[in-house]
């Protein structure tokens, strides 16, 4: 029974809890929300053991939803989406705990929105019906808009609107593409169905339209990743979002773009995705993302903007990993997605803590605080090292696999991407130095208080993951290997057959 109901429980429970939080008096809101998100985490943990790596799509529940249009409520998890779900349920309780001190006004609303956001996110990762996927994609957008728009910083409205319209514009095109796809497949096979399995089984007949459909999917996901030209909403959204908002935005929302590529764009349009021109284009954009993201991050005065641009760089690695389409590179991409969620999430928590103490996000507002707040400085150092990809931490394992996997397919691109390793040190270390080392010359920094037990409780799980994945990633790699191998083989096989027929 567990395997049938778990995903639906994961989807439904947060919404129920959100309603509950709204009824509770303001003072209790955050505690109830924390409890609810912990329950959510507890529900999702058994997924880790009961998941058989080799058994493809699991925990599947398939119910008719709108039979007239061939829309079904199908949810399921495989090696790729399992870790995204676990990452979500892992980050949400931490971000709720992390915003205890940060959110002071309208707490009920904030925590309710966070819980609704959780179900939206999990919905995106588990849905195997394109219509359900699209609905969840939009459901996830609205709470995030309010979180940035209401509890954000000074230019929050601009950032929230920009975030919303940018993503919404992309997703509308995707909706059109989904509809056209379903209709085309329906015409050819007589059955109109939004089911992912059905659509991937009846590809091939799309002909030249496949380019446009892929283009629409690409745009929607590229905006979300964000890839180079579509990234400008990210720094604004991050700077203005509250800590919890930034953590979830960076930790999970960015992964929807890359997850979308892995789950939908590649398998549905293999021949287009592997078309030499498209490949070259995407790999180039990914490379630009890596180097450009790093270089621009180097000169950011605002610490959160710096982390935002570093996310562009990290996800450039993911895109390179996905498009190299070898077993190592895809697994590396998945691993970077998880690691980025953890280390960038931790970075945003620390940035939030610094903001809570000094109400300033500017790097130069700090300096020499390692003397005053040794614990915070130590945590910031470890997390920065993980974000730079120091071997022994989680960052290295992911990026190393991506480079190793991408090298056979794109030797030159892999070497350029490897320079990302240098650029990473060039943007994060100077920032780290300006914040915690250098002379303690500003009086306000003298009486900063060190990490409170609550803040330590937020950071310890993340630091534990950083070290654990860095030193012993085998269990994760083992669980995602079959799914990654299946994806790589099926996409390459379909691409070969369809290019032949076209």
């Amino acid at each position, binding site marked *: 029974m567990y395997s049938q109901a778990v995903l639906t429980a994961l989807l439904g429970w947060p919404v129920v809890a959100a309603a509950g939080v709204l009824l509770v008096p303001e003072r209790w809101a955050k505690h109830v929300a924390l409890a609810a998100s912990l329950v959510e985490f507890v529900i999702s943990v058994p997924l880790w053991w009961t998941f058989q790596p080799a058994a493809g799509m699991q925990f599947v529940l398939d119910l008719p939803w709108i039979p007239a249009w061939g829309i079904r409520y199908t949810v399921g998890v495989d090696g790729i989406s399992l870790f995204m779900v676990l990452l979500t349920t892992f980050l949400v309780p931490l971000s709720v705990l992390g915003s205890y001190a940060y959110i002071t006004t309208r707490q009920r609303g904030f925590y309710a929105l966070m819980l609704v956001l959780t179900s939206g996110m999990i919905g995106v990762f588990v849905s195997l019906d394109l219509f359900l996927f699209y609905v969840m994609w939009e459901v996830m957008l609205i709470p995030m808009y309010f979180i940035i728009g209401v509890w954000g910083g000074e230019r929050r409205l601009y950032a929230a609107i920009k975030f919303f319209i940018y993503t919404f514009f992309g997703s509308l095109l995707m909706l059109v593409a989904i509809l056209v796809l379903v209709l085309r497949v329906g015409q050819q096979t007589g059955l109109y169905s939004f089911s992912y399995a059905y659509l991937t089984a009846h590809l091939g007949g799309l002909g030249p339209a496949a380019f446009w459909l892929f283009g629409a999917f690409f745009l929607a996901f590229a905006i979300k990743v964000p890839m180079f030209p579509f990234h400008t909403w990210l720094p604004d959204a991050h700077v203005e979002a509250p800590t919890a908002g930034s953590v979830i935005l960076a930790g999970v929302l960015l992964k929807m773009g890359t997850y979308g590529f892995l789950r939908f764009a590649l398998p549905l349009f293999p021949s287009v995705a592997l078309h030499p021109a498209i490949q070259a284009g995407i790999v180039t954009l990914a490379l630009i993302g890596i180097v450009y993201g790093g270089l621009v991050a180097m000169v950011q005065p605002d610490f959160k903007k710096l982390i935002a641009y570093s996310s562009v760089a990290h996800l450039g690695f993911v895109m390179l990993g996905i498009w190299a389409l070898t077993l190592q590179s895809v697994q590396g991409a998945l691993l970077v997605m998880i690691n980025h969620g953890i280390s960038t999430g931790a970075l945003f928590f620390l940035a939030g803590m610094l903001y809570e103490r000094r109400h300033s996000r500017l790097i130069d507002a700090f300096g020499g605080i390692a003397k005053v707040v040794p614990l915070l400085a130590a945590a910031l150092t470890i997390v920065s090292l993980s974000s730079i990809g120091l071997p022994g931490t989680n960052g290295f394992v992911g990026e190393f696999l991506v480079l190793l996997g991408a090298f*056979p397919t794109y030797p030159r691109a892999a070497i350029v991407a490897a320079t990302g390793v240098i650029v990473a040190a060039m943007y994060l270390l100077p920032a780290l130095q300006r914040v915690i080392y250098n002379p303690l010359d500003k009086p306000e920094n003298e009486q900063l208080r060190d990490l409170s037990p609550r803040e330590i409780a937020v950071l310890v799980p993340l630091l534990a993951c950083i070290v654990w994945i860095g030193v012993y990633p085998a269990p994760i790699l083992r669980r995602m290997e079959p799914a990654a191998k299946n994806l790589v083989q099926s996409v390459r096989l379909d691409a070969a057959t369809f290019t032949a027929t076209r």
Partner: protein
Amino acid sequence: MPLPLLPPLTLLWVVPALPLAGSVVNGALALAAPRAKRAVSLVGVGVLVLAFAAAALAVVALAQLHPSAPLVVRYWEWLPVGDLQVAFALQLDQLSAVMILVVTGVGALIHVFSVGYMRGDPGYARYFAYLNLFVFFMLTLVLGASFPVMFVGWEGVGLCSYLLIGFWFTEKINADAGKKAFVVNRIGDFGFLVAMLLIFRHTGSLDFGAVFPKASAAFPAGGPVVTAITLFLFLGCTGKSAQIPLYTWLPDAMQGPTPVSALIHAATMVTAGVYLVARCGPLFALSPVGSATVAGVGALTALFAATIALKQWDIKRVLAYSTVSQLGYMFLGVGTGAYAAGIFHLTTHAFFKALLFLGSGSVIHAMHRAYHATHAHEDAQDMRNMGGLARYMPWTAALMWIATLAIAGIPPLAGFFSKDEILGAAFARGAVRPAWYVFWGMGLAAALLTAFYMTRLMLYTFHGPNRTGDREREQLHEAPPVMTGPLVALGVLTVLGGALNIPPLFGGGARLEHWLAPVTDVALTPAPDASPATAWALVASAVLVAALGMVGAFQLLRPEALVPARLAPPARGLGRLLWKKWYVDELYDAIVVRPVLWLSREVLWKIVDKRLVDGLLVNGTAAASRALGWVGSRLQTGEVGVYVVLFVVGVLAVVGAVVR
């Protein structure tokens, strides 16, 4: 088939695990009870001594077996991805045996010295935590059984040197020096990384045990791929072992505490590059171009660094450039295929360079106490403020003289044997490839300069009139025993070090060479040893050059003419050029650092990101839609007449369409 592992060898993990445990304990103490100095020093030094004991045990066990293949112990699966199966495995063979002995041995002595040197420092526990962590990463690097595990150690030591250089982080210069060291190392690590990608691409594995036997089959000798691999590996080495062009970080690294300079920037970390080239002997053997580059850059660096050392006034900077120069020798050695000679020089250099650094440490320590007592704000490291210290610090002076004689290459001390072997090998190689004659020449010139600047250092520091200042003079006296003890130990090692590998020319057994034979037998077979006559001639030339350098220094330099730093006239001409390190730092700054910063701030961020992408595309479309709205509103003038006209025009259009 790896031999059955005797108990001591299966405990190989104990060697790196001890310093790690020490680092964790000291780290906790640093955060919890920074004042518990006794416990910290006990843990810090104890852990190192135990590690040395464990290492010695392992080496003895290895010696009994004397296997031809390295003993690999696998602990857990690290990266099991498809056909890439990297395990966290340690390996012990003759080469890594030598290295772990050097690292733990010299490391232990330096830890003891640090107890005295860092006594007054508030960050005492944090210092020992970092130092232990460094030894852990160095041991991981040396004992790693595959490229990625070695890379963990490789970047780990880079991290520790960043933490230790910037130890007194409240001064911006120290923090900058640490950052510069890490970034430059990272550029080197990029090379190492790309080499790993190439190796995996062509051999399908990253374990030493798999790559090297397959090397000759997978890579055509002298082919482009193996040359690329060796060059990228060497790029990594230049970053880590401070060779041209990535050496600029080492002199700045002197901002860290002196024992750190001794341990990291003289004895262990900087030799990682030499170890890497020795470990990847089979690859370098396959690529003559690669080896030639290594030897060439090594010789060039040796000479170039020696020239700069001539005119430096900071005692530690002289030693820093001397290290860069001596590393150049080691690369010249391993570049010519004489891996044993390279490793031998590495070992002896570890002894006398550590001695020199620790000696300068006790000098600086004494100078600090003197200036501290009189609240004078003078540079405690500037030789112009020293002079005639032998009278106050006899032990340090004597021991440093021994090290100076060793480094100059005066027989029978260690330096003579190791440096002579490298020059001999280079000369012998010259017969086969004339380029090596040039390298040999450069090496010899560097030897001359080495003797000169070391003697200059000794004269200015320990002889001639004392320039420290009257009241400070009374405060100057010998370092406490906890500091001079390690100095004596290193002195003994420097004297006896030569015995490790006395060449047959002098009736020695060349024990180190035979010991390393299983690892290095696949290396480039240097030309047959020159006839005894040329060998003696070489030895004579080396000794002559060394003597010339020292006597020349005595004759040319007049320590009495020196004035304290405050009053010293600015240097001019060639002297200024050398003092200013050939303006290399400024060159890098102008060519690389500033343009990259300008490019990313002005071009990438302000123009591309702000104006082009954000301004044009995003806000641009927003503005466009608003403009469209405005045009629409202009149309609504409110006059009915205008609406009617538009109405009729519409009707005409519709009817027109229907009619046509």
